[in-house]
């Protein structure tokens, strides 16, 4: 072994000793929020968007002097760990966050990770804040889960209704992403579309993690002469798909699953008119309510004027605000069941922390943990956005199994 070898060996040992020895253990006056999400790899952008929202809520509360719970002031801290969308890492991270860092709540944005956590969270006593539109996580009976985003079914029906009733589309080619989320979404959509008398001309799941040339798939899809295409990845791959479909001569419309954002897609197509005839979620910036405006302002103050917040950040932000409000309401930082009860307590909407900050002015949280929020849709026609239209969210889309 060379001389460098010894030194290096010593260095390695040193790193281990230092890192294992010095840990910022949560002291008595800290509330820890754990976040496990994709911070590297293909999903990193999504993960970072969420993280920005989470961090913003935490910083805001700390700036106000912390959170007062049962007469005692607490500081809040966020610990983020990378899981690259892998369930095993999510579970490992959660164990670390809960048992080592003292977190009572874990925020996670993938249905796989959430299912992994649901297997242990009641036993190991922590709350899951689920960022998913998947219905199963609120209908499975898990008592320690709450879910931020609206139910998938609300979007499915609203988009399908709009596409058929307003645009008169009948033939739809489905090109959702090849992962769990796209599969669930397109499954629900297919059933509903056919029930309404529509035709699914082809179903081509797209793996957006691969080399992203969509010509081969689009060539195949366009050969079936669809009126519209259902697309469902994040904004940029969606935009590529739109652009390439137009290049191949497609004139119909696009139904955009809510993970994609029309305003972001707009940045990535050379001509806005390419997006004509698209249905998707309404950008947060077009939300008319003052609290949304207030959130955008605060977001830009924190992250820079050129940063436009997306729903991921806003929903994550709202979730933390709710969670912290629930702690205050419950008067305990440790009893997870009491915190869960407080979350569902109608009084929480009246608390100043929530009332002043919730960008969505969420209506309530169902006993199963689903947050009922305000959802708006939008269309893109003639090179610009239409006025937002409300997406109907009857209670059953939040509470029933489908």
């Amino acid at each position, binding site marked *: 072994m*060379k001389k460098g070898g010894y030194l290096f060996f010593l260095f390695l040992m040193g790193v281990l000793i230092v890192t*294992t020895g010095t840990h910022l253990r949560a002291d008595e006056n800290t509330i820890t929020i754990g976040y496990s999400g994709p911070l590297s790899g293909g999903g990193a952008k999504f993960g970072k968007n969420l993280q920005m929202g989470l961090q913003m809520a935490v910083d805001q509360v700390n700036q106000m002097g912390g959170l007062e719970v049962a007469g005692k002031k607490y500081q809040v801290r966020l610990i983020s760990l990378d899981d690259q969308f892998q369930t*095993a890492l999510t579970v490992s991270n959660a*164990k*670390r966050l809960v048992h080592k860092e003292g977190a009572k709540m874990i925020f996670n944005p993938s249905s*796989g990770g959430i299912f992994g956590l649901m297997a242990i969270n009641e036993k190991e006593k922590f709350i899951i804040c689920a960022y998913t539109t998947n219905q199963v996580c609120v209908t499975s009976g898990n008592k320690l889960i709450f879910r931020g985003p609206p139910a998938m079914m609300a979007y499915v029906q609203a988009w399908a209704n709009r596409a058929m009733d307003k645009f008169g589309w009948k033939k739809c080619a489905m090109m959702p992403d090849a992962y*769990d989320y796209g599969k669930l979404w397109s499954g629900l959509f297919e059933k509903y579309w056919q029930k309404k008398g529509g035709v699914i001309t082809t179903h081509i799941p797209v793996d957006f993690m691969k080399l992203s040339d969509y010509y081969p798939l689009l060539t195949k899809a366009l050969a079936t002469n669809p009126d519209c295409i259902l697309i469902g990845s994040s904004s940029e791959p969606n935009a590529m798909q739109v652009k390439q479909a137009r290049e191949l001569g497609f004139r119909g419309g696009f139904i955009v699953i809510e993970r994609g954002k029309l305003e972001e897609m707009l940045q990535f197509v050379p001509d806005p008119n390419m997006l004509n005839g698209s249905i998707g979620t309404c950008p947060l910036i077009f939300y008319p309510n003052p609290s949304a405006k207030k959130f955008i302002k605060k977001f830009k103050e924190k992250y820079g004027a050129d940063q436009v917040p997306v729903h991921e950040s806003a929903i994550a932000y709202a979730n933390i605000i709710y969670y912290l409000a629930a702690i205050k309401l419950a008067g305990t930082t440790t009893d997870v069941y009491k915190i869960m009860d407080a979350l569902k307590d109608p009084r929480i909407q009246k608390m100043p922390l929530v009332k002043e900050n919730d960008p969505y002015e969420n209506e309530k949280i169902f006993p199963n943990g689903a947050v009922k929020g305000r959802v708006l849709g939008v269309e893109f026609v003639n090179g610009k956005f239409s006025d937002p239209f409300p997406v109907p969210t009857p209670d059953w889309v939040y509470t029933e199994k489908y």
Partner: protein
Amino acid sequence: MDKKRKALCLGVLILIILIIPLFIKDEYYLHILVMSGIWIISALSLNLILGYAGQLNLAQGTFFGIGAYATGLLMQKMGLSFWAALPLGCLLTATIGFVTGLPTLRTRGHYFPIATMCLGIAIYYVIARWDDVTGGARGLFGLPRPDPIVIPFLGTISFESTASCYYLVSFLVFITIVVIHRLITSLSGKRLIAIRGNEDLAQALGINTMRDKVICFTISTFFAGLAGGVFASYMGSLMAENAHFVTSFEMLLNVMIGGVGTIIGPIIGAIFLPLLSEELHFLGGWRLVVYGLILILTIRFLPFGIVGGIRTALAKRHDKRGV
């Protein structure tokens, strides 16, 4: 005298392993220990084919995944008990290992690692896309922990707690070490070393290298499957990513950084590296950058891993004393 000392050391080590859960109450550290046990089994399995037979199998992580999925599916879809599903899952993995080993082991040199890498990718995609059986990209959830063992008059051993899983995994690690140690110290083990050293010469000496490689490959996939099966039951959920070749990389790193071609090396690597990766979390986004640098530097200065480094150091000291 030497034997006695060895036995004593071993005894003390086993005692320490047995009483660890009495001192470590922290759920998180116990979890890390269980995971280390699983990584140890998988690292030893890779080390058998890589360190002794000299074949760089980059599909080992995929076999881990096959074992995990096989065990999980046998429990969930066929309703088998863990105690039946685990051996069946390992056998199934070994069977697939045997069938895929036959064509891939025909290749030599750099073609073998890349052939197995392709094999791993192909199988990964089958697992990731075969919705009806494997659950596709969403994975498998709600896999049960091992069924309690009922011992008449004494009570039952349940595996709900992490500590009990720790004992189960430790036991399996022990079995793995014994089997692999017996294999490599036997005359059959000498054949593997011959294949690693020079395959042509081994053939000229009358060794059926193809048969021995296939057998070794099959045994090593069996243990990869064992690690996977335990993983499935312990974690309760599986994703196709568990069969991805990134898992193979991780195993390979454990083996190489610990010390390839030794029994203790992969064990050290499988404890040390996951711990290092965990402890570097404080670096945030730069964590994997530092981790990568540490890998490069380790392999640069300690080409035979931590164990290799310690050995050379000891040999040097020995030499100095001798003079």
